[in-house]
């Protein structure tokens, strides 16, 4: 309705035309008030919608083609379990086509930007609860059969531990800590394999071995090796 009012104001401002209708002079204002809601407005809105949808679809299509989302497990299987959500954006791609005998081989070298967010816990004692967030680059080689090898470098990484009830002692004062936990810089590297789903080309499964460093953790660094596997979509 606000759009209708704006259109009316715009038209009235520029219209000095009056139209004879029987013995009564009707202004454009009046005519538009009659017509717009019923016909013109419907057409204008329809056209605008179609135009906006078309633009949106074009942008999203491009973005979607280049972006995979992933969801999967991460942890060390035995003690620490977690779930990971992430996205990969295909930034650059180099496609090489080789002719060998009767076959054509396509090798893709891809550079992707990735970002992930995960939560992990050791259910038993709740002493290893925390949120991981990391971002970086993935170098990926994809062969003709859509099998991939990847190396992931994540210079930006953060681990935020989530602690249970915590008390801070300073001298004689004991206070309960709100939202207890600590943040650590957590860069990581990973190597992995995977495969695209044939029908959608850029979706499939992945299996990564990741090595993460948390620093400063206690008086030094903590090294974490974790297994990541899941699906892209």
């Amino acid at each position, binding site marked *: 309705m606000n759009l209708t009012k704006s259109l009316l104001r715009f038209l009235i401002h520029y219209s000095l035309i009056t139209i004879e209708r029987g013995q009564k002079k009707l202004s454009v204002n009046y005519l538009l008030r009659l017509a717009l809601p019923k016909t013109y407005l419907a057409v204008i809105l329809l056209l605008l919608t179609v135009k906006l949808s078309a633009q949106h679809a074009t942008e999203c299509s491009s973005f979607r083609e280049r972006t995979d989302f992933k969801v999967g497990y991460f942890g060390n299987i035995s003690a620490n379990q977690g779930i990971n959500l992430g996205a990969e954006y295909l930034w650059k791609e180099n496609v090489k086509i080789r002719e060998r005998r009767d076959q054509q081989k396509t090798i893709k070298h891809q550079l992707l930007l990735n970002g992930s967010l995960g939560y992990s816990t050791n259910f038993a*004692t709740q002493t290893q609860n925390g949120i991981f967030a990391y971002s970086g680059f993935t170098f990926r080689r994809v062969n003709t059969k859509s099998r991939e090898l990847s190396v992931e470098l994540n210079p930006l990484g953060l681990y935020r531990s989530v602690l249970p*009830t915590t008390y801070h*002692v300073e001298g004689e004062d004991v206070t309960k800590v709100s939202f*207890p936990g600590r943040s650590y810089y957590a860069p990581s590297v990973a190597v992995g394999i995977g495969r695209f789903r044939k029908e959608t080309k850029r979706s499939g499964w992945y299996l990564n071995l990741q090595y993460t460093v948390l620093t400063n953790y206690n*008086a030094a660094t903590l090294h974490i090796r974790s297994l990541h596997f899941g699906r892209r979509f």
Partner: protein
Amino acid sequence: MNIIKLKTVVVLFILLNIFSCSKDEINLDNLNETIYLRHRQADMPAHVHGNASDKTFLIYLHGGPGGLGLEARINTMITEVEENNAVVYFDQRGSGNAQGNYSEEDMNIDAMAEDVLALVKVLRTRYGSDIKFFLMGASWGGALGPATLLKGQENFLGWIDIAGAHSPKDLYYEYPIRLMEKANEQIALGNSIPHWEGVLELIQNVNPIYNEEDGSNMNGKAHESEGVLADDLVINKPQKVDENGEEITFVARNNGEVGLILTQKGLWRDLSFTDDLPNITIPSLVLWGKHDLVVPTKFAQEAFDHLGSTHKELFIFERSGHSPLESEPDLFAEKVIAFINEYR
């Protein structure tokens, strides 16, 4: 007007609900929770379990350095000691699942002893200012225990020393004596002769002056030899089971730097509390395995002789090595409970 009143009532109801939910409900009869102590940039878990109905808490200091508080939550500690009183399994800084962000300067036995006293304050805040404490330390915890007591023994009703290394610097010189003695004894009995000959060979090549590598090798060989003693049925096979009798393991997340840093700071070369033990005057119980090769039995008598307590007891477990809790759990619980009940 009615609507405003109704809204006020609803908001108050919601607020009351939120605050009533956020308040911790503590059942002293059956504690089962993990809380954290934040002190001097370290966050250290304390796993509190058991019956605190009469407000008696036993704080357990693990071995290592770099062990895990929950390492002692096994066998009769769960089924008997926790029934008698609450037990606090504490991860020291840099150990177990403790975390934090501090420098190497903050990693020292003084800071670790102050952490224990800070833990006492936290437990009083959470469970009441009238609660009572006993302190128990095993192996390395037997060095941290005296360090803590010398700073604040008035907080504790009693001290339980389980094969405690109150004088780490003397271990280096005692290992060759004890290992050689045990090796000769076992060879004479015809038990695992190749192993014990290896022990003798190791000892012959040990530098007579403290050497970190030799010390580490002898410590490793002492642990290994206790395994051999168990295989040869000289000691009871150590067991670690939960309340259901199932094998139990615990996982720690730390980088083990606490052992390296303390070693660099002279833990095994310089540290000894032997001359300070007379200043510990609270009731004390000294528990040791007769076949302990890791912290040899000589230190049991030394601890007992030097402690300044007027009420003290030394008990030797005949079928145990370094961990009586794992080899003779029933007798272990019996001795601990009797001591706590006598002085609680």
